[in-house]
């Protein structure tokens, strides 16, 4: 495909349809995926795909996409026709043109690693997971190299290359009618070195041990409790409890409970929450967002005060602010939405032991099982993979997985201690009608929440 020709064609069509702003993303993505269950290889695939996504703006957005590159010009024209038809009155932030070529470098590009070697990795993990008490072993490997050429009517031309890799595995243990599983996910932006650096022997043994020990774990209690969250759980907690409600589109549409609260103290003074797409090697990292805006670190809450929303071009214009590089699309065939990247709680000075001694009767909860938020009601929930009872500052019985729930505006003020041991290494995907890769984390955090246990 000839990019220069597309750029010219877009300009010509914009003139014809009287479109004030447009942007085009041409994407080429190479993806490998392998999946194995109980030594049974279920998928090994390696594919390449090219597509185009076009947005045109004339007071409202028109969007079109195609994966048949013969339809590229048609997609441009369709998006512009739609924008013109819509006769909207919204605004969009326009900046100076950027010409750049940016790449997240891999030490050892996975594109140069044979499928055989990737299969070998999957088999090794499967083998390590073998155990008499483990009835199911599941291993999944995926990598994707995304080349994107972005251009817009302002004259921006940005070429980016982002490699992303992920390895996950789980073990399921069974005793009588009881079944429990545990899993671990590794990943980031970079190359094969990310999976090479994983101590597979250690982590497979860890996952096996956890799934087996959960068979003997107690049922979690229910009710309001003091809860210490480990860094992984603190990550999903802040993603659900604050991240989504601070997304500019939710605020603009009058859906978020944080509307009109910028500059207000909404949390304890010790709390600072950051969303940073520029962190090196993290799963949610990128250099430019899908609107050609440079990615930037955002302090959503600074010292307890709601400091900044996550913004794209449209929400920035609405609030008369500058976008901060959080317009992300799942792929070329989706319109960018305001999204998180790597979200975390800044560390403070509590040690885990000090935190523990604060708790008379509570729970130490560990690991991320996902979560969900109702931003309009300001209620969120999130799941922990396992936990322990705490009695008089001491860790007691092991408990099974459980979900917690809280009100955004209460729970951020209920945080009593923030640890010093920051970890942001919990890759995952965040869904909002589209899936994008994200990471999150934090240090250990002590707060109070409603625990949905069975006892």
């Amino acid at each position, binding site marked *: 495909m000839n990019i220069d020709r597309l750029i010219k064609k877009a300009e010509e069509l914009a003139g014809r349809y009287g479109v004030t702003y447009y942007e085009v993303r041409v994407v080429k993505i190479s993806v490998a995926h392998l999946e194995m*269950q*109980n030594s*049974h*290889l*279920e*998928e*090994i*695939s*390696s*594919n390449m*795909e*090219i597509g185009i996504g076009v947005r045109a703006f004339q007071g*409202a*957005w*028109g*969007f079109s*996409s*195609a*994966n*048949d590159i013969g339809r590229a010009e048609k*997609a441009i024209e369709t*998006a512009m026709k*739609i924008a013109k*038809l*819509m006769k909207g009155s*919204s605004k969009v932030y326009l900046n100076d043109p950027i010409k750049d070529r940016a790449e997240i470098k891999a030490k050892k590009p996975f594109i140069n690693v044979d499928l055989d070697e990737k*299969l070998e990795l999957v088999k090794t993990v499967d083998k390590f997971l073998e155990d008499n008490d483990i*009835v*199911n072993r599941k291993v999944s490997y995926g990598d994707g190299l995304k080349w994107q050429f972005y251009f817009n009517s302002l004259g921006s031309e940005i070429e980016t290359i982002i490699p992303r890799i992920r390895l996950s595995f789980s073990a*399921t243990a*069974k005793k009588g009618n*009881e*079944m*429990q*599983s545990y899993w671990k996910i590794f990943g980031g932006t970079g190359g094969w070195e990310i999976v090479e650096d994983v101590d597979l022997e250690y982590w497979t043994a860890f996952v096996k041990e956890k799934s087996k020990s959960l068979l003997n774990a107690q049922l979690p209690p*229910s009710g309001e409790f003091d809860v210490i969250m480990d860094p992984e759980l603190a990550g999903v907690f802040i993603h659900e409890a604050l991240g989504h409600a601070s997304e500019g*589109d939710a605020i603009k*549409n*009058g*859906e978020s*409970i944080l*509307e009109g609260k910028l500059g207000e103290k909404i949390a304890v003074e010790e709390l600072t929450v950051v969303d940073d797409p520029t962190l090196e090697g993290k799963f949610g990292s990128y250099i430019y967002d899908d609107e050609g805006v440079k990615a930037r670190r955002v302090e959503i809450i600074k010292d307890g005060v709601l400091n900044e929303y996550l913004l794209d071009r449209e929400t920035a214009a609405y609030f008369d602010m500058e976008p901060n590089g959080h317009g992300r699309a799942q792929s070329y065939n989706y319109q960018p939405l305001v999204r998180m990247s790597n979200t975390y709680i800044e560390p403070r000075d509590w040690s885990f032991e000090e935190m523990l001694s604060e708790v008379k009767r509570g729970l130490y909860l560990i690991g991320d099982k996902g979560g*969900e938020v*109702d931003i*309009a*009601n300001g*209620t969120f*929930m*999130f*799941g922990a993979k396992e936990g322990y009872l705490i009695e008089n500052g001491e860790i007691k019985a092991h408990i*099974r*997985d*459980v*979900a917690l*729930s809280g009100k955004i505006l209460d729970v951020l003020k209920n945080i009593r201690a923030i640890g010093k041991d920051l970890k942001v290494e919990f890759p995952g995907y965040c869904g909002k009608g589209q899936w994008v890769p994200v990471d999150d984390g934090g240090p250990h955090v002590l707060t109070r929440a*409603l*625990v*949905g*246990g*069975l006892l």
Partner: protein
Amino acid sequence: MIDELIKILNHKDIEWEIYWEIGRGSSFKIERCELVRAQRKYHSGIGLRVGYKGKVGFSYITGINHDKTSLERFVNRTIKLAKVSEVPFYGFSTNNKNRKVKSLYDRKIEEMSFDDAYSIALLLTEKERELKERLGVEYAFSGGIAFGMSTDGIANSNGIEKIEKTTGMSVNIHIVKRAEKSGSGSYYRGFRLMPDFGKEFSVGLERALEEVELSYSAKKINGYHGEIILEPHAVASLVSILMSNLYGDNVYHKRSRFSKIGDSIASESFTLIDDATLEGKLGSYSFDGEGNPSQRTVLIEDGILKGFLFDEAYAKLMNAKSTGNAVRDFRTVPHIGNSNVIIDGKRENLEDLEKAVVVKRVFGEHTANPLSGDFSLTIELGYLIENGEVKPFKDNMFAGNIFELINLIINVGKEKEEVGSFLSPRVLILGKII
């Protein structure tokens, strides 16, 4: 071009299967009573599986306008993958039976112009604006409509050749009320055939408004243990936790609680059916991703485990027959999945009650543990009925174990409601609210 591809494949000494799609989808989105974005997207592509010496290889290409050379390259690449693949090959479908599920396609949707669709979206925008003017600044309205069509085809070296054209359309409405407190209400409905929009928007707005008022005045209640009525939306969330236990691949790989057909696993008042043959329903299709005809599969009948869902591979592995539950698109290999899920059982009147605890919506079911069955979900909205008076509640949790819960079903209501591809009545259970 498909014929060209088949010709190339027939000249090779392999077993093959192609799955292709051509489609388009359009949508309009309303935010704060303004029509702010619209899209029209096109997609097409072909997925090819090649069976060679007991192994299978897969790859896909996007687009359906390729010359002979690139088709040759595509075929050779997939054969090469099959040669190095270690994925066992269990054969492609041989079931030539043609089933035609009715009312999955409406020419009116396929031929609807973008301008006509725009007028329909404007109609919803105007209705929302009228309501906003009447109700005041405390309310924020959003929503949208979406519609699309797709042609899916399958062919394989066993002589299977099937093709189906389907359409779909959906309406969604979301209302937020914010003053000293907050509340929200929503409505979603999908269709295969063009609905009467005027009527649909009125019903949707009325239902979402009812919900927003309930939600606005809802408060957390004290814990409760006893009889609870689950509305269809909440039933769908809970049954979704159970479903993966009924997929053949999970049973085979021991990631399911269930193993033996005939076991008593639930209350006698509970029946669960997967049915892809229902006329005009969202989860219906004439053939699945491997070309097997769709069917109705009873999974649980009066509490007894009756069947599992299968694709071709796991049916062969477990000495069973495919139930036509291979779900896929051209980019993916087939995986077992459900179609329409019908919840049924011993029917009683669960409407018009004087006294009840009702859970309308829950969220967070993806955090539940489908293996142990444990779940703790947040109650988005529920209400108590006392002496015929409705008192809403929210922010409590609904916790339990799905394998126990299906044993605690007392009876189910008489009228079913569609929630996506779930068809469920109200269900009366014994449960716990925290």
